């Protein structure tokens, strides 16, 4: 079982057509630089010793996230981490957006799901270079999975990489991937209370996209109320209402991306 995310079979499998690295699993290094001699000629007694560690539990992930951030910066590549509950419309929004955004710069996607390559296939159908990470029983993407996925994607300078995290409003909030920005999606069908019920997730967002606003006429959903709830947990987050089906608000989102993660000057 994976020591980082709890999934079986290593920290997820990465799949991209033409690349056979799906089963390479993990590289967990265990450097125990102990320096013991083995002279057993004396009576041995057992004593206790306190070892002060003072380390963050997520230190290993955070180190990998820093490596990713540095690698991306050196390449002139920006990564955006998309997080939401399952079914809020991340993939549908990306299907629509990658075509539009790729007029200005290359766009690539890392897809995270527990199982199936379905989302990656949907995005590849739009012509977008995509790798799928299947986390098995894992409930989130971690920085080491992204490290391997980025090596596979091999994005060139100016590329915008979207990371579509595993659909989950809890666990992905704790794991830095090395992204430049965090975007959280919440759909109108999920209700106005989501920021209050999942404050950790919304608190870390740079931008919140309220999706499926084309359904508003059929729902009892008060956008202002949702905005107030968001402001209570994250006064700095921007909120943009969008509909990937009707196209509403998409230009605002593209505009946000252009200013938040600009194409680097050549």
């Amino acid at each position, binding site marked *: 079982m994976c020591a980082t995310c709890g999934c079986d079979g290593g920290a997820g499998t990465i799949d991209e057509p033409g690349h056979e690295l799906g089963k390479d699993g993990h590289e967990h290094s265990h450097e125990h630089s*102990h320096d013991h001699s083995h*002279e057993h000629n004396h009576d041995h007694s057992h004593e*206790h010793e306190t070892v002060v560690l003072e380390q963050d539990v997520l230190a290993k992930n955070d180190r990998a996230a820093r490596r990713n951030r540095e690698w991306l910066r050196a390449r002139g590549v920006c990564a955006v981490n998309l997080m939401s509950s399952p079914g809020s419309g991340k993939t549908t929004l990306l299907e629509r957006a990658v075509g539009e955004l790729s007029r200005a710069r290359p766009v690539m996607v890392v897809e995270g799901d527990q199982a199936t390559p379905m989302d990656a296939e949907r995005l590849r159908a739009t012509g977008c270079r995509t790798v799928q990470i299947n986390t098995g029983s894992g409930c989130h993407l971690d920085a080491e999975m992204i490290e391997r996925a980025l090596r596979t994607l091999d994005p060139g300078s100016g590329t915008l990489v979207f990371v579509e995290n595993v659909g989950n409003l809890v666990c992905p909030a704790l794991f830095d991937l090395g992204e430049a920005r965090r975007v959280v999606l919440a759909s109108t069908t999920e209700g106005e209370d989501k920021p209050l019920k999942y404050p950790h997730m919304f608190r870390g967002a740079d931008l919140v996209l309220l999706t499926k606003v084309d359904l508003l006429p059929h729902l009892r959903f008060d956008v202002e109320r949702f905005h107030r709830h968001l402001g209570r947990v994250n006064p700095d987050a921007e909120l943009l209402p969008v509909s990937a089906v009707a196209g509403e608000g998409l230009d605002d989102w593209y505009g946000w991306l252009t200013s938040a993660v600009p194409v680097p000057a050549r």
Partner: protein
Amino acid sequence: MHELSIAQSIVSGITEQVGDRNVLRVGLEIGRLSGVEVDAIRFCFDVVAAGTPVEGAELVIDEPPGRARCRGCGAESALADLLGGCACGGLDLEVLSGEQLRIREVRVQRDVRDVRV
């Protein structure tokens, strides 16, 4: 449930530092605003520690309470959860404490055979 992942990160974080030495006690700091449930950690810890040198170790968990400073009026106050606000009505708070998620120390069995003589 991310507590399983967190528990596994705790166990691997310890074994990477102390190797195969038998761990008797683990001191953790899990802040009340960290988003991690202490009861779930206790449950998951026993599961993931099984078969490792950390198996059976006593888990001592310090849970520092939340504390925040209001960006509006500058006052510091206790923060019970992330939905709290300042007495002045301000909601824009800088969290000062309560988000810790740290391995503080471990108590290991020292076998004198392992001491260079």
